[in-house]
């Protein structure tokens, strides 16, 4: 029996409040290295707020977030990115008036423009967007934009990739491509932390699921364990 992988990300008692709304309430969990972990929950359960805090866009009111042993407290998003943590957004946030190639190049860590361009071209090829390298991001279809944002995250070669609803608005063919790319990257040792409403895909992809409801972690286990959890059934379907 192999020992469980060590945690790459640890979230401990994290709370975030916006005015009178408690978006995340004392959430604690970890994400294991080399795994695909899912974060699910009904709309407004705090999934995106957690992603915002992990990536440094928002700061927790209480609690700690640790990535590879480094506390993320007070760190700017670019510092967190440079530690090896990349993320996508629920609604794609590409640089619209920059080409697909430039969108990927800008995220690259290599100092020389030539090296950054070569890496960006390789990544575009990886997801089959080579022909659109010179096209402005705003002109791409939504599915292509999702793929582009996915490879932009890969440009600095992160260890942990947070995907915020990667399958939302994506057609089945594109979905399959995205899943195939994720499996390739998983084989290379990358770690994924995903949130999405496509439960069928999430159940198939993830080894472990964390379920949020009203900002609280109500379940944490394998997809089978979560599927049978009373609290999860109640959160999704009501009593």
């Amino acid at each position, binding site marked *: 029996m192999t020992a469980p992988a060590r945690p790459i990300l640890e979230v401990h008692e994290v709370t975030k409040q916006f005015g009178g709304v408690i978006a995340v309430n004392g959430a604690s969990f970890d994400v294991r290295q080399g795994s695909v972990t899912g974060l699910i929950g009904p709309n407004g359960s705090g999934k995106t707020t957690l992603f915002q805090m992990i990536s440094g866009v928002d700061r927790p009111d209480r609690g700690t977030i640790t990535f590879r042993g480094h506390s993320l407290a007070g760190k700017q*998003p670019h510092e967190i*990115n440079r530690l090896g943590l990349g993320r996508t957004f629920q609604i794609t946030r590409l*640089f619209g008036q920059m080409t697909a190639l430039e969108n990927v*190049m*800008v995220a*690259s860590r290599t100092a020389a423009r030539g090296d950054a361009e070569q890496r960006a071209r390789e990544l575009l090829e990886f997801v089959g967007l080579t022909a659109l390298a010179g096209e402005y991001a705003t002109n791409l279809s939504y599915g292509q934009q999702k793929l582009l944002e996915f490879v932009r995250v890969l440009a*600095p070669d992160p260890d942990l990739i947070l995907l915020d609803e990667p399958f939302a608005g994506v057609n089945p063919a594109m979905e399959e491509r995205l899943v195939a790319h994720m499996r390739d990257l998983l084989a290379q040792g990358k770690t994924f932390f995903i949130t999405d409403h496509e439960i069928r895909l999430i159940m198939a992809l993830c080894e472990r699921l964390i379920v949020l409801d009203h900002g609280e972690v109500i379940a944490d286990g394998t997809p089978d364990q979560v599927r049978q959890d009373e609290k999860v059934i109640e959160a999704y379907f009501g009593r």
Partner: protein
Amino acid sequence: MRWGVTAPVLLALGVLMLATLPLWGTGYVLSLLFLTFMYAAMASSWNLISGYTGYVSFGHAAFFGIGAYTSGILLTNKLAHVSAPWPVAVLVAGVVAALLALVLGYPALRLRGPYFAIAMLGLAEAVRVAVTLAEPLTGGGKGLSLPPALVDVPAYYAMGLLAMVAVALTHVVATSPVGLRLLSIREDEVAAEVVGVRTTLHKLVTFCVSASIAGIAGGLYAWKQSYIDPTTVFAAGLTVRAITMTMFGGQGTVWGPVIGAVVLTYTGEQLWARFPFLHTALFGGMIILILLFLPGGVIALLQERGWLPRSRRV
């Protein structure tokens, strides 16, 4: 002929013509080109911070004005018993403008969109008032008279050189990873941070470089004019012209501000000569038309029609 060959040839011919102009051009043409170079430098400087990062500064005249006064004070013997040589005075003007940008930019660049624009407008006005109140040093509202100097030709070359440096610098920025990072800030600052761009550092350094160009332009202006006053060198109209010229040519492009400076300086001069009582209104009307019908500027229009390559080098 391909653009890769045509463009450098045209550029070399243009530089040669401008370099020999004092030998065959009239004094009026020399003055008009001095103004054109000054506006090209100002517009390129504004373009660096506002065109590339999207932080629209309505207070760029503050850097021109502080540069003019720094140079003016150093060229007179107000601070020391002897006046500084002009190259030293104008370079110090650039440094002082950059330092002012550092002080103003550190808090102001945390604001976004219209908040930054208005903050810069207010800060520029505050700098103008401070300069006016420092009467023993600046001459206050009466202005500052510099030692009279007949420097039309050297000032022409110096301002031309500054405009060239501003364009060359923009070219370097536009074709480097730094340029992409600045553009990413303009497009979506949060996303830029998340993909690893050190947005605060990039904005602040760009703001200081941009201010130093405006400061040197102000310093050269003071040296040539031999007289400066706060109303002229801190005029909001200077900023408005830099903005209009950049928008006319194309924001976030290398040559857009130059095209804008050439076309609008010449057009402004013609309007002033032909319609002395209406030229400001006509110029204003022209700005509205530009915003309505050329939102991306001349360069974007030429690129859309396929007459110019779609490249960051343009």
